[in-house]
């Protein structure tokens, strides 16, 4: 009787483990599909702004899927989630502020081609 109960529990554990492994494979497949969509989007879509937003959204989805499922943030303690997202949010705020300070958003040097330095600009690293 106890052997039957033990082997029943073992088979539940194996099913549970297989379920987890299958979930990871599914998540990886979804990530691969999103990556393929990201790569092909600029070649098939014309609307620049919409393509940009779509790519940023897909990037964010991939980021959070890896964090939630592969890094187990979904199931882990709140403190760990807060620590990571806190660092991420701080980095986002600081560097968006830095980009804004250098007029990256308002200046055409941001997302557009922009105005490069003049052709007679001195070399970056002088000879000798």
């Amino acid at each position: 009787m106890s052997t039957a109960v033990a082997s029943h529990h073992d088979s539940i554990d194996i099913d549970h483990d297989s379920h987890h492994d299958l979930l990871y494979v599914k998540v990886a497949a979804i990530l691969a599909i999103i990556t393929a969509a990201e790569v092909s989007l600029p070649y098939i879509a014309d609307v620049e702004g919409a393509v940009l937003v779509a790519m940023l959204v897909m990037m964010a989805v991939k980021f959070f899927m890896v964090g939630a499922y592969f890094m187990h943030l979904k199931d882990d303690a709140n403190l760990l989630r807060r620590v990571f997202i806190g660092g991420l949010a701080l980095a986002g705020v600081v560097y968006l502020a830095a980009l804004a300070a250098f007029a990256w958003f308002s200046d055409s040097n941001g997302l557009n081609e922009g105005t490069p330095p003049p052709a007679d600009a001195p070399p970056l690293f002088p000879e000798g």
Partner: protein
Amino acid sequence: MTATTEAAPLESEGHEETPGHGHLTSTGLSNEKLAMWVFLGSECLLFGGLVSTYLLYRNRVPASQGPKVSDIFDIPFTSVSSFVLLMSSLTMVLAVAAIRRGDEHRTRTWLVTTALLGATFIAGQIYEFTVFFREGLGFTTNLGGSAFYGLTGFHGVHVSLGIVMLLSLFALSARGKLGPERAETVDIIGLYWHFVDVVWIVIFTVIYLIPI
């Protein structure tokens, strides 16, 4: 007659035993795992700085100072590289799952597979750097190039260190020193590896794909 009393286990006031460690922590969580998450949070600041530096400098390239980085990208090649790194995240999480259920053979298989996929990614990066150099974009050619090589080079170093850690885990496991009781060690290295992948997700989209 003396009465022996056992100290009642400290409970929810944040003082709990962490499983598998046998010592108390004030958060109820493993100190090592918390330290890795704090480290990864700080790494967001490092890579955020490198990415924003590239974004600021990528277009500041006069025609006389070599090509712009975005002019010489090979997107299909880098897409394959990105896929390889993404799959290494899958094999890493499978390694963690395997060690948790005590399957040491599978753990070693997935660890070495992850390391090989990471090494393939690094080989791709090195090849890409040599192609860019032949196209006229060196580390000191222009500001955009310096920022690009700085960003992707730092990421490559992180991947390389991850490979060293994975191979160390493989060696420990091969010597019978990495059982299920040390699953958390594999989990923590796995967190580092997934973070390296997540950073590449951002780099690939922001640096490679969006400019095209």
